[in-house]
């Protein structure tokens, strides 16, 4: 587990994941997940910056980090059975935001029960184009919660 202070700017080549609740997932007729709605990146009602989780906070390879991050989230919040986790590279998120006219900072912001917590600061509240670009272009992997032990 890496030790960094709150406010640490995450390196561009690191990864974050965004929890996507079931109603923000695009599914086919059989319930298979095809992607995420732009609204998956929208600020939640009580959010000032979109919450993400920093994978490299944990030790191990990519898969091990995914697993540890998800386990931490499951212990802290009510992760739904049919939800999913979108994985993105920090630099890609920043680049997409920049192309949409927003310079965001992705900052380590640990919480008491979610030590891997980070957030995307300076994020606009209702920019559909940016949300769609993130939903359609930022994710390098979308993992169903059910697929993680």
């Amino acid at each position, binding site marked *: 587990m890496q030790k960094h202070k709150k406010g640490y700017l995450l390196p561009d080549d690191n990864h974050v994941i965004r929890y996507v609740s*079931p*109603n923000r997932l*695009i599914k086919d*007729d059989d319930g298979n997940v095809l*992607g995420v709605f*732009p*609204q998956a990146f929208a600020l939640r*009602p009580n959010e000032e910056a979109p919450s993400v989780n920093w994978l490299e906070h944990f030790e191990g390879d990519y898969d091990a980090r995914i697993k540890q991050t998800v386990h931490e989230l499951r212990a802290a919040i009510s992760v*739904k059975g049919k939800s999913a986790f979108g994985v993105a590279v920090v630099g890609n998120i920043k680049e997409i935001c920049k192309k949409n006219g927003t310079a965001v900072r992705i900052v380590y912001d640990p919480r008491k029960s979610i030590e891997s917590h980070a957030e995307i600061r300076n994020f606009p509240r209702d920019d559909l184009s940016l949300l*769609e670009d993130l939903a359609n272009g930022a994710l390098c992997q979308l993992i169903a919660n059910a697929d993680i032990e």
Partner: protein
Amino acid sequence: MHQQSFTGAFSMSDKQLLFAAPRAFKGSMTPWSLLPEVSSTALNEIARQLEELKIPPSPASLSLTSQPRNLQESLFDATASVKILAAQVAMHMDKNWREKLFRQIDSLHDLEEWDSEDKPIRRASFATFLKAILQVKPQRHPGLGLSYEGYLIAAWTLGQDRLITEYLPNDRVRWILTRHIDGEIERASGQTIVSRLTECLAAYQPEHWFFDAKA
């Protein structure tokens, strides 16, 4: 007044379904006032159709006794509310599409999967969606979701091409699309009223999403 006409015609669960709807519309605007005069016979038929389309509760959801009763009630009421709206225009929808839509509504309001920060589908949003669907009459039906505000969102995807629409009150629609045409990636977005949606999308060949290629 409407409730009496149902007495004796249904089981307890039917009554709960039908009585829940008027409770959801307290205030000056009732669902019935939005619609043409409907006879009790017609309402009975709608109720029967709704009953046929109900999905039995999953075993998992039966164990959710610890959920707050008010959440269960609000999801139940919202489900009944939008299904009644859909049932009023059911004659314009084929049976398969109607059944699928009802399953999707049940799924969106699934108590077991409900995010505490979600809001149930707003009836005004669903009414806008129905108007759009009845106007476009798509052969391919969208995946549905919910925004945090309770607005219905719909996605048509085909390969890397996607069309996302969000249905707002008062016939307003927000849309955004990504379309690959002749090796170029085109993106566009806008907000319009339902009656202009197809015109706004026309430059991007929306039939690509709405209709099967062989049709």
